[in-house]
């Protein structure tokens, strides 16, 4: 019974180890990391040698090295937030493609909302003014003037 169980377990373990890409002699415990997890973190990081490209999208060597570092740190058990923090500690908030929603950079997030609200306010005020002007009664017509207009229109060929 034990022998047959061992016969099943051994190949299964081997297959699992091969699939995980983790050699049995690995020094530190590491978990398999798929490309999606690496992409998730790398997409938030600015490629330092590019113009407006994320580490996930850049074909540069530096970005490839940074992706390898992201993968390695995730495999070592760090959370995506910890990996992001590792880069922020070295490059500052500059490394994040989306500025953090605190401190001075909060302005970047709040300003568009404020602008839209102010715009809506101005628009409402203007619309109200235009419509209220139409609602006021037309000025009384001078009978003499309307008589003159009638006469001039009749004179037209």
């Amino acid at each position, binding site marked *: 019974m034990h022998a047959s169980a061992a016969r099943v377990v051994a190949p299964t373990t081997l297959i699992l180890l091969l699939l995980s890409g983790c050699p049995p002699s690995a020094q530190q415990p590491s978990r398999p990391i798929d490309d999606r997890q690496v992409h998730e973190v790398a997409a938030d990081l600015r490629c330092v040698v590019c113009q407006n490209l994320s580490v996930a999208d850049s074909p540069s060597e530096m970005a490839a*090295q940074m992706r390898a570092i992201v993968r390695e740190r995730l495999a070592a058990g760090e959370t995506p937030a910890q990996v992001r923090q590792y880069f922020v500690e070295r490059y500052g908030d500059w490394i994040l493609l989306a500025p953090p929603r605190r401190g001075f950079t909060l302005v970047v997030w709040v300003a568009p909302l404020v602008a839209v609200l102010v715009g809506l306010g101005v628009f409402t005020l203007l619309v109200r003014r235009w419509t209220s002007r139409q609602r006021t009664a037309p000025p009384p017509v001078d009978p003499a003037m309307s008589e003159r207009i009638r006469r001039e229109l009749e004179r037209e060929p």
Partner: protein
Amino acid sequence: MTRRAWRWLLPLTAVPVLTLLAYGFRLNPRDVPSPLVGRPAAAFALTSFDGAPMTLEALRGKVVVLNFWASWCYPACYEEAPVLERGWRSYRDRGVVVLGVDIQDKDDAGRKFIRDFSLTFPNAPDPSGKVSVDYGVYGVPETFFIDRRGRIRVKHVSAVTEQVFRDTVETLLAEPGPDG
């Protein structure tokens, strides 16, 4: 609100936007302040082009000039290479060490650069890019001046000039070491 007020108020709303733009366009986009200045320099263990170990730990108590370069970085790296070599030769006896880290480069091209400029200070490649990221490097050349207590004191972006080298190193040499 009167019609006259509106005539002034609407163009006035453009003022903060224009002020922000004027401020932004005057800044140098490459001038990104490093959060590492004032903090302890990250330890590293590289192997120099000669095969010798190159670590920061072994240099505690010395002023370290850590330069990140690449053979394709023309002209800045070509301008500063002789400056760094001269600095190394004149200050090595006073407790200053110049270290070069060749990043994003081909091994052959890096070796040729060292030969062409007859560089005698230790130089090592950083094939994984880990040291570059640990120092928050975003281009070449970048130079870090590390004091005798092992803290990054100055980050210099672009080619190091004779004056920058001399002034920074003299300032750091005048400070007490880790024991003093």
